[in-house]
């Protein structure tokens, strides 16, 4: 669904990523690791088309990103759920409104929304925080809310950037099981993290491939984890 073919990217001086090839197919589960500053977030931005590769091709749902206009990219993003490192909420809207925002934006708001939203809020354990504003939530609550917003459009692909960044271990495991549940529903999942414990814990739940960015390239990490 999202495919990278020999992709390179650099912010200006020299390449940060080079020669990367990867296919995110339905039902796949990938972890992306690497030290801080190695380019994990940059990699995800290439996947959700915020960045255009300096070399190689990124294809989203069969189309080369270079040939897509702004509206094409907007429509493609509705099929990609993104959990950002810093969540990216609209702070003047309640959590429930933030989670439902992709529906409004995509012109898909409908009569069943309230019910679905309640179910979704329950699923991420935020049933009693629906009316709160994002800044009033804890880091873990925000990241669960971000996950809820990422899946409300029932996307084909879910990209999560350090979703357990500022969350305690119990909460990390809960987020992981939510992602595993989505993966069993056939979604392609890519989680960027430098939390090796999380990856180890995941191995018991899903069949995940672990990729590592090292020396600008993408490598399949061994079984040593």
């Amino acid at each position, binding site marked *: 669904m999202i495919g990278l073919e020999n992709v390179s990217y650099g912010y200006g001086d020299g390449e940060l990523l080079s020669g990367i090839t990867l296919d995110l197919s339905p039902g796949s589960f990938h972890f992306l690791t690497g030290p801080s500053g190695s380019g994990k977030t940059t990699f995800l931005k290439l996947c*959700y088309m*915020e960045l255009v590769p300096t070399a190689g091709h990124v294809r989203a749902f069969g189309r080369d990103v270079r040939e897509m206009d*702004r*509206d094409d990219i*907007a*429509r493609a*993003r*509705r099929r990609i759920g*993104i959990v*950002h490192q810093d969540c*990216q*909420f*609209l*702070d*003047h809207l309640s959590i429930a409104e933030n989670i439902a*925002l*992709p529906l*409004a*934006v*995509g*012109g898909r708001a409908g009569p069943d929304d309230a019910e679905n939203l309640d179910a979704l809020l329950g699923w991420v354990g935020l049933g009693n925080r629906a009316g709160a504003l994002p800044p009033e939530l804890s880091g873990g609550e925000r990241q669960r809310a971000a996950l809820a*917003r990422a899946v409300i*459009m029932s996307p084909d692909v879910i990209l999560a950037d350090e979703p357990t960044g500022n969350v305690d271990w119990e909460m990390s495991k809960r987020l992981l099981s939510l992602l595993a549940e989505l993966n069993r529903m056939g979604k392609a999942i890519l989680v960027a993290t430098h939390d090796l414990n999380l990856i180890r814990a995941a191995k018991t739940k899903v069949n995940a491939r672990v990729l590592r960015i090292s020396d600008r390239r993408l490598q399949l990490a061994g079984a040593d984890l």
Partner: protein
Amino acid sequence: MVPPTGFTAQLTVFSAAAMAFLAVFALALSLAAGRLADRWTSELARSATVRISAPQGQIEAQTRAALGVLQTTPGIASVRVLDKDEQQALLTPWIGQGLPLDVLPLPQLIEVVGDETGYDSEGLRQRLAAEAPGARLDDHARWREPLVRAAGRLRDLGLLSILLITLTTAAMIVLAAHAALAANAQVIRVLRLIGAQDSFIVHAFVRRFTARAVAGATLGTGLGMLAVLLLPDAPETAGGLAAGIGFRGWGWLWPLAVPLLAGFVAFWATRLAALRSLKELS
């Protein structure tokens, strides 16, 4: 979608209201000047004077000849020879009472009133010259034309003011929209990331600015109409233009177009500003 911004919103509403207020006055001025120009053109064009100066003995004959010409000229509704008393009444303000007008060699005046279609002054002049050499047609053209020109110019200036007010409103709204878009760059970024097309974001801003402009302009138009309504009455004859400022009958519908125009301008100004800055933003 876009967070409310109290102060700048109020500024937009205020500016729209002020511009609408000014537009109502410019409109009232234009309409009044237009009416004045029309009136001077039509009323004055219809009334003219024929003055017959000739040696005492010929006046009567030439007057008769001139009347003959006038009565057979198409476009003239009525012709009337002024009698001595009327002529005296006309002269009194200028030369005072008590002068023995009887002994002065006064020219004979004939009042001419044209009908709706009007008459050909040049043709009439030539025929008068042939039939009554002492007759001079004065159709007030000499002093009428500059007045009509001035009134017409005043009307054009009023219309130009409305155009300038419209453009200023557009500029003001473009600036306000730019400021709002810049202030909400993060909101726009988030909306883009969750799949919002430009049209969705533009719509959110356009709706907001159009609503503010229409609200402000409605307020300003209302106040402007009230101010025009409350202008003190001056007698039409004395005041000329000043007395004529205001709306007449159906003319009161004109200012109602001001909020519509403001909404139209705000819609397009915001739309173009937003589309352009979205392209620059990401």
